[in-house]
């Protein structure tokens, strides 16, 4: 019981403090910009482009797709910074020198970004309703809220894996950008997945977001929670898979660093 309490505390404290400690967009102005205006810009761009190509009535498709995809700002960039930030701060030896439960440290790094990412999606959807004619009046909003949380969670799972890569190499920003922009397409945010070549459809199916976006579109069109439950359960499964892959990589990294002496100290 004591251990459980201790680990819960570690998770919670680690969550809040590491979020503030390691997340680079801490200045309120940059944070607000990334939360409020960046989604707006992305949505305007793709909605304009998309409706130009495929007609006015397809606007909702792009609005929802991009609003949900926005979560990967937190899920990919944010989580990567939170996991990889210890490398830059030089705190890895001090972190790995503690007896703390590594599982709690690792997943604690992502938790705030799930909330943060979900807030980002809500803001983006609000822009959609206010400025881009998105109609959510027939939507089961609690179900949509759940879908947003689950999608954000699974995207953070991928972020955790990416964050581990950033412990291994310094140039992960490039990879992050690549993943972020790939998700714009592969997740189906801006294209009908069924129109993609088969290999791309396969990639789509093993990425987070894809099912979350599909579920959100279905909800906006009036579907019920039961209609999308398979999508949501699969989305959770994908998030867990990436998260655990990340955790195994994290554990492997610690062991490897101690074997090879690559855990920098100064």
């Amino acid at each position, binding site marked *: 019981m004591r251990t459980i309490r201790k680990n819960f505390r*570690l998770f919670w404290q680690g969550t809040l403090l590491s979020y503030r*400690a390691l997340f680079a967009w801490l200045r309120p102005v940059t944070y607000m910009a990334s939360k409020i205006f960046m989604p707006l810009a992305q949505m305007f761009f793709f909605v304009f482009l998309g409706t130009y190509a495929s007609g006015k009535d397809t606007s909702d498709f792009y609005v929802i797709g991009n609003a949900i995809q926005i979560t990967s700002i937190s899920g990919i960039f944010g989580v990567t910074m939170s996991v990889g930030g210890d490398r830059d701060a030089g705190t890895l030896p001090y972190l790995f*020198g503690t007896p703390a439960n590594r599982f709690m440290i690792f997943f604690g790094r992502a938790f705030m970004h799930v909330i943060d990412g979900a807030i980002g999606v809500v803001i983006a959807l609000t822009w959609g309703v206010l400025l881009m004619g998105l109609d959510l009046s027939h939507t089961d909003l609690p179900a949509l809220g759940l879908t947003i949380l689950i999608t954000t969670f699974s995207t953070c799972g991928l972020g955790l894996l990416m964050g581990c890569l950033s412990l291994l190499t310094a140039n992960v920003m490039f990879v992050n950008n690549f993943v972020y922009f790939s998700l714009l397409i592969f997740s189906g945010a801006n294209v009908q997945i069924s129109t993609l070549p088969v290999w791309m459809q396969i990639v789509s199916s093993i990425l987070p977001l894809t099912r979350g976006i599909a579920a959100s579109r279905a909800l906006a069109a009036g579907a019920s929670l039961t209609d999308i439950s398979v999508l949501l359960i699969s989305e959770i499964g994908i998030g867990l898979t990436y998260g655990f892959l990340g955790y195994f990589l994290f554990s492997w990294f610690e062991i490897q660093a101690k074997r090879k002496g690559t855990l920098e*100290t100064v």
Partner: protein
Amino acid sequence: MNAIEINHLRRIFRAQIGVFNRSIKEVFAVDDISFEVQQGELFGLLGPNGAGKTTTVKMLTTLLIPSLGSARVGGFDVVKQANEVRKRIGFIFGGERGLYWRLSGDDNLRYFASLYGVDPEVSKKRIPYLMEMVGLKGRGNERVGGYSRGMKQRLHVARTLLHDPDILFLDEPTIGLDPVGAREFRNVILDLQSQKKTILLTTHYMFEADALSDRIAIINKGSVIALDTPSGLKKHVSDLSVVEVETFGASEIVIEKLRALPFVDALSVEDRDQKQMILIQTERGAEAVPDVISALEGQRVGRVIVREPTLEDAYVRLVGGGA
């Protein structure tokens, strides 16, 4: 029970050198070290850069797996029982990194307290106590990024005492500090010593080791070459005197000529701006001075002093002089 027991510890690093003609270079960073540190002892590990001090400390703090040999800290094996060791030790690697600069001093301590599983009720009292102890009282709300180097290094001390460890590893803790900061830091170490903590201190500052340590191991090229109390080490050179000669722009050739003189036991050179200080250890004391001066024929020579040897001279003799 000894606080630290080191048994034929070795660490070999394999570094790949050359891009095309790939060959593996083996560095014997720690090469068969054995010693014990008693409970409550302040043990100094003294040696030049690259001697293997940090590598030794990393192995003892569970951050690096030894290649061969074993070590027990607080009675636990550093590899097989790493987590038990971690609960009982604190450690600092010199320098100001390793803290979360965006967080306040207090928040850094809160985070590490949770990593060490310190009860919040306990850490609520302990954090202000430690901040006061390391001289950071009233600064806990400020972001660490704004701290001076000395403040950051003292915050590291507070960080490593959160879980009240019995055994502390301080790897060059005063490195990069100005003289005042270093003195304040040494006072903190003395404070810890009076609390009966076992401390392994590495340093390459002679006087620091001399002033603080109960015993000192001198380590060079991965091996312990002497282990004794500070006064015991000085006995190694008690038969010697040191002739200090100030010169201006003496060349390598001249210095080699001095080194070759039959009565010169060890010789080292310290460069100071325009001038050099040549330190010669010799059994002949003041009688050596005329021969030294004549060997420096044609050079500009400043002050010449003959004095008793210090720990530094013992060290120079053991490590083998060199410029």
